[in-house]
């Protein structure tokens, strides 16, 4: 599978279809995102670990597409993208963080094992170029466990989990969809400074709510968390709710606007 990706990337680079390819590179035993511009380098292109490449596109600081645009306006980059990467790219484009016209997606499917380890419900991109789409995971144990609890049990559960938080901001920094330059989590009026753990549940509530219509379920927040707070549980539930309430899924397509920034005419809901 990796051979096919390398070959496709090489073909696109040679034909000038793209000026560079963004993917993971293994160098001296370490894997990190890299912008491949030379076909000779492509031997180093790898797919694993299943680290979303898009991390480098959506990060809060200087993103790869923006850097590329500054150095090479009008240039195009190919992005080796799994399902979650593609959803993130689409959602970021919709929120004016990058332009899909400057991106060519090299869609790669995940294996069933990878999908299971992520608990991913859609482990393949729409523009699938390499590999075969496998069925996603439909039931998440953490979600089911939370739904089975009473309100008091849920509150106690989260109090226990959130009290482990050391406010490292890893969940925010790892999120491909967190791109605000002025982050509410750093504003004293919302999150008190100098307290560890941060006020329960304010800190986490703000993250959950802000990502309700953005989260593409890549799971990077949970993977980044050094104290293993099951953050994805609530993100999965909210994604499900936003779909149920407004028929909207972040990253599904580039046309539909987020329901939380449109009027009822565009995303109607039942009058109570």
């Amino acid at each position, binding site marked *: 599978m990796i051979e096919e990706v390398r070959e496709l990337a090489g073909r696109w680079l040679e034909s000038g279809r793209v000026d560079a390819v963004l993917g993971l590179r293994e160098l001296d035993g370490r894997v990190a995102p890299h912008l491949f511009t030379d076909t000779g380098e492509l031997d180093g292109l790898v797919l694993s670990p299943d680290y979303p490449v898009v991390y480098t596109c959506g990060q809060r600081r200087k993103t790869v597409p923006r850097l590329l645009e500054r150095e090479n306006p009008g240039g195009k980059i190919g992005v080796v993208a799994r399902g979650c990467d593609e959803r993130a790219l689409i959602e970021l484009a919709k929120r004016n963080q990058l332009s899909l016209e400057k991106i060519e997606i090299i869609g790669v499917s995940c294996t069933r094992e990878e999908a299971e380890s992520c608990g991913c419900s859609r482990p393949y991109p729409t523009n699938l170029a390499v590999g075969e789409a496998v069925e996603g995971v439909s039931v998440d144990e953490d979600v089911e466990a939370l739904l089975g609890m009473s309100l008091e049990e849920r509150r106690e559960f989260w109090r226990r989990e959130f009290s482990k938080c050391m406010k490292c901001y890893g969940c925010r920094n790892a999120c491909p969809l967190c791109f605000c330059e002025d982050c509410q989590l750093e504003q004293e009026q919302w999150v008190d400074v100098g307290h560890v753990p941060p006020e329960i*549940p304010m800190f986490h509530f703000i993250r959950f709510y802000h990502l*309700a219509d953005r989260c593409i379920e890549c799971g990077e927040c949970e993977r980044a968390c050094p104290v293993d707070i099951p953050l994805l549980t609530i993100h999965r539930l909210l994604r499900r*709710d936003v779909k149920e309430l407004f028929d909207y899924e972040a990253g599904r397509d580039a046309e539909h606007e987020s329901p939380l920034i449109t009027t009822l005419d565009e995303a109607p*809901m039942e009058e109570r």
Partner: protein
Amino acid sequence: MTGFEPRIVGFLCNWCSYAGADLAGVSRFQYPPNLRVVRVMCSGRVAPEAVVKALYYGADGVLILGCHIGDCHYLTGNHQAMKRVAVLGRLLSYLGVDPRRVRLDWVSASEGGRFAQIVTEFTEEIRTLGPCALGEGGP
């Protein structure tokens, strides 16, 4: 739970609901004194963070009142409030807070009676739900 008096924070929109509350007062409608009113320019102005912050600092319920759909001074501010509160309610329930503690409703400037009725109903509902105690107690 003897002697429990609910503390309720109300976010009232400047154009309809605040005037509706004013009318309730002028018309001498009786309603419980548990509501603390915050006047905001629009129900769409009420950030969900502010609602949770109110609960964190000791409110037992939050009442958001705005203009009826179609009557918003800013045309669609209340549309957004409605969508936000729907998502907020789900999120609160996952975190272990009863979503009934947050209520969004519409009161026009001429509905003083409706204002009094909503505040009475909501206060009674919160009274049966009991104290919220979301935070460890604030300042």
